[in-house]
């Protein structure tokens, strides 16, 4: 190889490195500016009163209690509905379903569903849960709508995690005379669980940030009481934020920033739980 080509190759390699570094910085800086801006605006507003007050007409007295409690309710309910459903569907499609044109079709549709705009799910939820099932504008309607929204993600994650389990493990189990269920339950699932849990929690993190589908099913923006059950009306943090930033007073903008910080903290906490669970399950599987 001539010297000219070699130095040209080296130069190209350097240019590519600089380009990818720039890409990283742009993402990083944008995120940084956003976080700093929000913290400057909102950090001073966070106090016990802010967490424990109901919303109010006066920005200085308004708090996020109903939204925070609503978000926690929504998260728990959505997790309770979506995890078993997604896990079950994923296991069936990956382990039991025959591979033919029909399952292929189902597969493609599930992938497509993951890309449908969330407001469409909101309208679906409004039609089915609020109107047909008669659950009204309740926590239950909201949680079921969010369940539909993230179900495709959970199913896909479950399938990917199951697919990643080496074939040799299945063979080992079958060769001992295990049934399909014994093999899936005792050998495949424990190995796939860390991936499934991580995917589920990331999907849930997405769900708690959703505003559009909940507004579509008619979640209220002003709620001065706490829900006592799944049939009560509710509000959640993103809706509270949406409501506050649409007001003219500056004080509400600060409130919104503070509420965003709380929402970010919850997401961060959920991601830590995901990491913790993954570690825990990885320890149980002794690689």
């Amino acid at each position, binding site marked *: 190889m001539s010297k000219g080509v070699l130095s040209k190759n080296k130069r190209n390699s350097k240019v590519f490195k600089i380009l990818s570094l720039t890409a990283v910085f742009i993402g990083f800086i944008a995120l940084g500016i956003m976080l700093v801006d929000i913290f400057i605006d909102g950090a001073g507003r966070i106090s016990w009163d802010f967490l424990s007050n109901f919303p109010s007409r006066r920005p200085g007295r308004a708090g996020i209690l109903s939204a925070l409690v609503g978000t926690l309710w929504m998260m728990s309910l959505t997790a309770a509905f979506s995890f078993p459903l997604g896990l079950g569907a994923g296991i069936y499609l990956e382990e039991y379903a025959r591979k033919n044109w029909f399952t292929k079709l189902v597969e493609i549709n599930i992938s497509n569903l993951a890309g449908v705009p969330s407001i469409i799910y909101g309208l679906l939820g409004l039609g089915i849960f609020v109107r047909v099932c008669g659950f009204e504008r309740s926590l239950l309607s909201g949680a079921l709508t969010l369940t539909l929204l993230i179900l495709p993600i959970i199913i896909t994650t479950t399938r990917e995690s199951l697919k990643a389990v080496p074939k*040799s*493990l299945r063979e*080992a189990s*079958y*060769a*001992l005379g*295990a049934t399909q269920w014994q093999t899936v339950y005792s*050998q495949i699932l424990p190995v796939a669980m860390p991936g499934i849990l991580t995917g589920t929690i990331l999907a849930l993190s997405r769900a708690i940030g959703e505003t559009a589908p909940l507004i579509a099913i008619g979640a209220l923006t002003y709620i001065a009481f706490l829900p006592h059950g799944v049939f009560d009306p509710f509000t959640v943090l993103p809706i509270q934020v949406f409501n506050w930033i649409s007001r003219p007073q500056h004080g509400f903008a600060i409130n919104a920033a503070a509420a965003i910080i709380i929402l970010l903290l919850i997401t961060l906490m959920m991601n830590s739980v995901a990491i913790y669970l993954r570690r825990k399950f990885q320890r149980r599987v*002794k690689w």
Partner: protein
Amino acid sequence: MVENNVFDISALNVWYGEKQVLKDINIEIKANCVTALIGPSGCGKSTFLRCLNRMNDFIPEFHLEGKIINNGTDLYAQKIDPIEIRRDIGMVFQKPNPFPKSVYKNITFGLNIFGVKDTEKLDKIVEDSLRKAALWDEVKDDLNRSALSFSGGQQQRLCIARAIAVNPKVILFDEPCSALDPIATGKIEDLITELKKDYTVVIVTHNMQQAARISDFTGFFMLGELAEFDKTKKIFTDPSNKVTEDYITGRFG
């Protein structure tokens, strides 16, 4: 000694989709003997082995004609449940594939799925199986350690112990030493020779010296056909088929 046949295989033909991979195989496999299957890659010997415990059932295009009679039972008869078959006919694979669990749990899994829960009984079977697999002395203090923290040879012997634990009648070996070094291979070979006292062994191997060392009977597969099947001594000293001779003397393959 009365030699009874563990497997009577007649007119066995196997297809993957349109492609025929085994052609008219007729073979008798004797109890308490080591039967080695040799032949070049892609000759169908692994496919044949996997017919014996119905591990080919998982391949969607797999199709079989002919009869495999195991101690009077037709393995491919309608009413036969492959799960029960695999209980009697254990298998050890090419790459050691212990479960990512402790040594102890690797061995007890096969017992747990059939409802053995008594701890004392389990402890005893774990020890017995590991002793039979010549692994007990190496792992007895580490029964709760991950099976994957041991060497490849130890893992393979663990897989043998796992197969023994459910008390099969036959153990199938699918190139069990191809991922192991010569020392570990030697240990597995000694073990197989030892195992034939209690079990019938069928082994697929790429290593002709290995077949010569450990087996009583040898089958030579070529392009999906059983080119020759005879006593190992006869095959390696006085093969009746020219192709067999060419293969074992290394003229091709």
